[in-house]
């Protein structure tokens, strides 16, 4: 069975470590906040200028001056700080954020990512994605392994305009967890009940497979 959006987020949450500063993109990455392991503390960075993002507000807490990078109303946790967008991207570009999780249209075996522009469709802009992929030490991409026609999104070479080059080292899809290194995808884990053959058939780029590929574990 391929993973649901929530299960992808649950698996990504296992990448979090105690004391991490983390930036979560829009979509599946946002859901990761719901599955932070109970025994660790992380601080969420929102690139408009908030470190220590909390949950959505109650009606009583609602404040139009408190939003996240997805323009959603949010709260700040105890220990949070608020700063300008220039300061925010100094943190990001300067490599101070420990983990960035974001979505993509395509990733290739050289760690290139395409996530903001489909030629012929309206280009809405890259927002902070190019800065995030250029600055983060540690990036996890979440996406479906293939599009709805079955075409792989894990490619030899990205076909769409790039958001960043040689910057992605880990992908969690609905079928698998993979590393990218030395010009290839390396299969680390498969979704429960998904065969290695299925993953092979949905991966266009070079795929390195070890003898024993364990199933993902969910606690």
């Amino acid at each position: 069975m391929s993973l649901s959006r929530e299960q992808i987020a649950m698996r990504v949450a296992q990448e979090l470590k105690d004391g991490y500063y983390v930036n979560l993109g829009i979509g599946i990455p946002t859901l990761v906040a719901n599955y932070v392991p109970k025994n660790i503390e992380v601080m969420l960075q929102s690139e408009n200028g908030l470190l220590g993002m909390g949950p959505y507000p109650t009606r009583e807490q609602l404040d139009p001056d408190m939003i996240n990078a997805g323009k959603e109303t949010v709260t700040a946790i105890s220990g949070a700080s608020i700063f300008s967008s220039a300061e925010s991207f100094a943190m990001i570009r300067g490599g101070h954020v420990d983990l960035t999780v974001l979505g993509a249209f395509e990733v290739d075996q050289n760690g290139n990512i395409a996530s903001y522009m489909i030629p012929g469709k309206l280009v809405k802009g890259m927002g902070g994605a190019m800065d995030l992929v250029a600055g983060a030490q540690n990036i996890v991409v979440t996406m479906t392994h293939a599009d709805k026609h079955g075409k792989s999104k894990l490619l030899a070479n990205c076909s769409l305009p790039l958001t960043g080059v040689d910057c992605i080292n880990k992908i969690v899809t609905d079928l698998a967890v993979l590393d990218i290194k030395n010009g290839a995808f390396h299969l680390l884990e498969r979704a429960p009940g998904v065969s290695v053959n299925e993953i092979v058939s949905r991966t266009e780029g070079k795929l390195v497979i070890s003898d024993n590929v364990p199933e993902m574990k969910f606690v």
Partner: protein
Amino acid sequence: MAGFNKVVTSYADALSGLKDGMTVISGGFGLCGIPEGLIARIKEMGTTSLTFVSNNCGVDDFGLGILLKEKQIRKMISSYVGENAEFERQYLSGELEVELTPQGTLAEKIRAGGAGIPAFYTATGYGTPVAEGKEVKQFNKRNYILEESITGDFSLVRAWKADKTGNLVYRDTAMNFNPMAATAGRITVVEVEEIVETGSLKPTEIHTPGIYVDRIIRSSFEKRIERLTLADNN
């Protein structure tokens, strides 16, 4: 003698000197922390062919969207612009020029512009469409592109509190692009919720020193919410 009193009481005075074809930097992220009243006044003034430097472009009937509707904007320099239908129409028909700029690069272009730095190297955008036509240079075996800074004829800023000398304090994430915008305008106009007596703000709590600020106008704000998300709905 006005001395350091920068308070003006009319929008006409606040935006005096704004002319067709000028470049205007605006603070705000989405609809949060935007100078609502100054934008509304530009609509009334009918100033056209403006270049706006702003992370976003408002929605159809609020924020910079109202200037788009009146075709007062010739060019937008933004990181993300997809929240309104009129924008899409003008962009696709070629009436509106758009320079998409990564958000952190945009923030730094304005910051550097205000700080007298004409250009800077950044890894952001290397190898992407953003890098086209830009100088590439290697530092420590990594590739960077040269990005030029931005200054404006006017900067429009929204702050929470100002004293009469123009010292500013922002409120929560309504800060966003406002501190950089404040530094990069030849004329910086600030719209605030509250004007306090000079001396009542602690020197250490001031976000933007008054030296950057030319005019202050007090206003009330709608503070429209773009995406209402509540704990109770989840």
